[in-house]
Each structure stands twice: as C-alpha cells, then as structure tokens.
C-alpha cells in the first residue's frame, strides 16, 4: 500500500495539564500507509499528541483536550467508544511492560477480551503476530513461559506482537527503542518498516537518526507547536525552519 488518503485528521488539537499547555492548536493529517515520525525535544508535546490519538490521555484526570480528531471520517471523541478506538489504534510504549501472564496469553489477551474464543483462531493469531514482530523463532518453543522472563528487546517485540494481534489499522510507537540495545533496535525498526505495508504508523522518537531511517514524513514539534512537517528526506537535508535545523544537527534539545 502506498501513502494514499487521509487516515487520521487532526484539527486544532490542544492539550493542557492544569496551567501547562502541552499542545497548542495542532492541525495535521496522517496519511494512510505512511510512517509519520515525530521528533522534538522533551516537553514538545509529542507524547501528549500520541495519547490523544488513542484517548489514553483520558486516563489522566488533569489533562484537558480540545479540538477534533477523525479516524476515517469518524470523530474519535464522540463517535467511537474508547475501547473500540484502541482496538483500531494500537500503541507501543517506551517501557515494554508485558502483562503478568505467559507469552501466549499476552498475545491472546486482546483478542479474547474482544470475544474471540476459538482456540485454533487464537493459536493462529499467536503465530502470525509473533512472526510479524520478528519474535517467533526466539520463543516458538516456550510460549507457556512467563513473558517477564524475556529480554528487554524481546519484551518490546512481544508488546508489538500483542498489539498486532488485534489487527489495528494504526499503530502508535512512543519512543519504542529508547531502552533497547542497537541490535534489538534494528529488529524493531525492521518490524516497523515491514508493518507499513498494511498499517499506518506514527513514531515518536528522540533518536533523530531513527526518524530519518524509517520515516516517510517527519514532523518537528517544539514547545507544543508543530514547527515543520514534510517528507523525511527533505526534512533531514533541507529543513525549512532554522529551529528544525538546529535540532537536527544537535545544537539544542
């Protein structure tokens, strides 16, 4: 699938925590089948933005969200239940925390919650998800073991697999490799690029090189504003804004 129509349309999105404004009126269209990478220093609003897209931000009683987000023309804040939304928009966290269950149960947790009880179907989901997350070969003969026994990199790929098990349309990655070694990072990036064929991906990362490696488009956030948005190749060779350039070459942030 090539980047096509608009998958997620965000209009005038603001997030405030008490008096702190984390996002100041952001408007952006995320295209179907792209990897949108978001870079920016800390406190730039990247994570708040991601958490709006699957309404995880609702868990934070302090956060106030304004603006409109549409997923395939559906208003995610009014038209959809947050549970249904989160099945369509999966999320991978910086800290890979598997559920305190076995490897297999981590994968089947989501599908079982949404009512899938057919054993054969669940087993197929386990295999397919683990394959897609490049973890199958490493865990195929110990699916019953507690997931917490896996290494950090494996745990992160398990978290990717459990998200894939729900067959989401969009996957949000929130600094997914910040705690991983280079080899694990490479595997996660490989999985992301492979996933792009069927999914829309938004990647928030502190690693500008990673944004350049996997992105099709890149956005630069600063202090709650989107400073620049463009094709990744252009962004890293001829940034339009001075602040983007400063950040990319490492003059601040």
């Amino acid at each position, binding site marked *: 699938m090539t980047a096509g129509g608009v998958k997620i349309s965000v209009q005038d999105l603001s997030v405030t925590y008490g008096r702190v404004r984390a996002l100041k009126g952001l408007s952006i269209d995320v295209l179907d089948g792209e990897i949108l990478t978001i870079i920016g220093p800390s406190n730039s609003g990247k994570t708040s933005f991601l958490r709006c897209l699957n309404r995880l931000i609702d868990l934070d009683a302090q956060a106030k969200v304004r603006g409109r987000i549409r997923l395939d023309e559906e208003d995610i804040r009014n038209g959809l239940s947050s549970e249904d939304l989160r099945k369509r928009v999966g999320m991978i966290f910086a800290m890979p*925390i598997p559920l305190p269950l076995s490897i297999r149960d981590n994968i089947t947790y989501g599908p079982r919650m949404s009512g899938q009880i057919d054993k054969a179907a669940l087993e197929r989901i386990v295999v397919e998800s683990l394959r897609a997350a490049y973890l199958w070969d490493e865990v195929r003969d110990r699916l019953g073991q507690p997931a917490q026994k896996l290494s950090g990199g494996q745990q992160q790929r398990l978290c990717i697999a459990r998200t894939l098990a729900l067959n989401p349309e969009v996957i949000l990655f929130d600094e997914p490799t910040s705690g991983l070694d280079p080899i694990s990072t490479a595997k996660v990036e490989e999985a992301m690029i492979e996933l792009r064929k069927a999914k829309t991906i938004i990647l928030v990362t502190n690693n500008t090189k990673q944004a350049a490696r996997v992105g099709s488009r890149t956005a630069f956030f600063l202090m709650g504003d989107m400073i620049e948005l463009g094709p990744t190749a252009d962004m890293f060779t001829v940034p339009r804004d001075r602040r983007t350039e400063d950040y990319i070459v490492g003059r601040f942030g």
Partner: protein
Amino acid sequence: MKRSLRRAKEFALERLLFLSGTASVVFVVLIFVFLLREGAAVFGHVSLGHFLGAKFWYPISSPAKLGILPLILGSLLVTAGALAIAVPLGIAAAFYIAEVAPKRLRTVLKSCVEILSAIPSVVLGFLGITLLVPFLKNFLGLPTGLTAFSGSLMLAFMAMPTIITISEDAINAVPREYKEGAVALGATHWQTLVRVVIHGAFPGIIAAAMLGIGRVIGETMAVMMVTGNAAVIPRTIFEPVRTLTATIAAEMGEAAQGTPHYHALFAVGIVLFLISFAINLTADLFLNRGKKR
C-alpha cells in the same frame, strides 16, 4: 579537645540510637521468655495434648479441667466469621477507593476509614451490646444475641480499616504501565481491574487479609462484650462462644497466682502469641514477595 568532645557526643548518640533500635527486640524476647516461664508450668498439671485437645475448660472446679479446645474453636469461629465479612468488603472498598471513586469522594472515604480505625474497641463493643445484640436476638429469633456471629460482625468493623488501607496501597503500587498496557489493547476499565490490577496487587491483598486476621484474633474487648463468653464447643455461629483473648482478660484478675489456672492462662497467652506471630510472618512474606517483583 574540641574534636574528642565531638567524638564523644557522636559515640553517645550512636549508642542511644542503637539502644532504641534494639529495645523492641529485647522487649519481645523478654515478654516471650516471661510468658514461657509462667505458662510452661501448667504442663506439670496437664499434658500438652490434653491442654490443646480436651473439651472442657473448668479452671476453678477441683480438680481443674484445663482444656482450651473450646476457646481455640471460639477464637477461630469468630475470626473466620469476621474475615468472611471483612475481607470481601474490605477488598472491594479498596478497589473502589483506589480505582473507581472520583477524587473528592476518595478523600472523604479515606478519612472515614481512618476514623473507623480510630474508634476504641470498647465503644464498638458497647454499641454491639446495646444495638446489635438485641437486634440479632429478635431478628433471628435466637435465645440470646450474644453469639459468635455478633463478635464476627464487631470484629469485621475493626479489621476493615487495616484491610482497606493495605489493599489500597497494594493497588496503587501496581505500575501505571501495566494498566496503560491493558487499556491500550482495548480493555475496559473493569477488564483491566480484573485481569491486571488484581494480579499485580495480589500479594499485597493477601498480606492485608493476613494483617486483618492478626487484628481480629488478638482483639479482646469488643469480643468479650458481645460473644456471651460460654466456654463450650460451638456447633453453629449463632451460639455463644468464648475466645482465647476474652478468657485471659476475664479470668486473670481472679486466678490466684501460682495455681494451675494462673499458669494455664499464661499458656493461653503463648498460644495466642504463636498464632499472631505465624500470621504476621505470613503477611510479611507476601508483602516482601510483592516488593521483589
């Protein structure tokens, strides 16, 4: 000169802190030694098996019958009843306070729980005698309202604050990432609670229940006031019972020093001590297991 003075001060302070730190250990040991010395003498009159297993507690008949089985069963029955009430209620309350209640209500509830724990047990016992006991007698048509069940109800009130507070701490200690991970997979709040939060908080919840037991089994005043204090083996929970604690409290003043009765009461104390110790130890094990993960 100045320097050596400072050193002396530091030395003295260190010793003082050491003494305060070890005082509790010393006291525990001393108490146990004293209990043991006074209590062990009873075994000159009855065997251990008879003491724990015989069905009759007639300490002032002659010869004295010193079987504490009715007392042990009385304590266990009252405790079991209290737990059957307090554990489910307490855990549910803890979940409500930690996970469901809106912020303002949470503050109110937490202070109420604290107030509940601050009510002296004699006051609860007083309420029990004047309100609960007559009510049970009439409502259930019992010959007397002074029953094990009345004691269980009163003790449930006393165990609830402990259970609620510690369970709530355990629930709050479940990493936020666990919950977010489940929620991000489309789990509802309830599904997250059931599958993830309970799992993470489980050791702490068990510890809370154990400490609740500890609180209940050692409680004396309220139980003595509402359970009727008949040292017979109960057949149902709606009969009068006498607990280990109430026996000591009621009889110690009248037992002549040095008599078998006197020593038997100390031995009852040892039994209580061992039960409490085992319970606290188990609770500790679970709490530590919770921390390690």
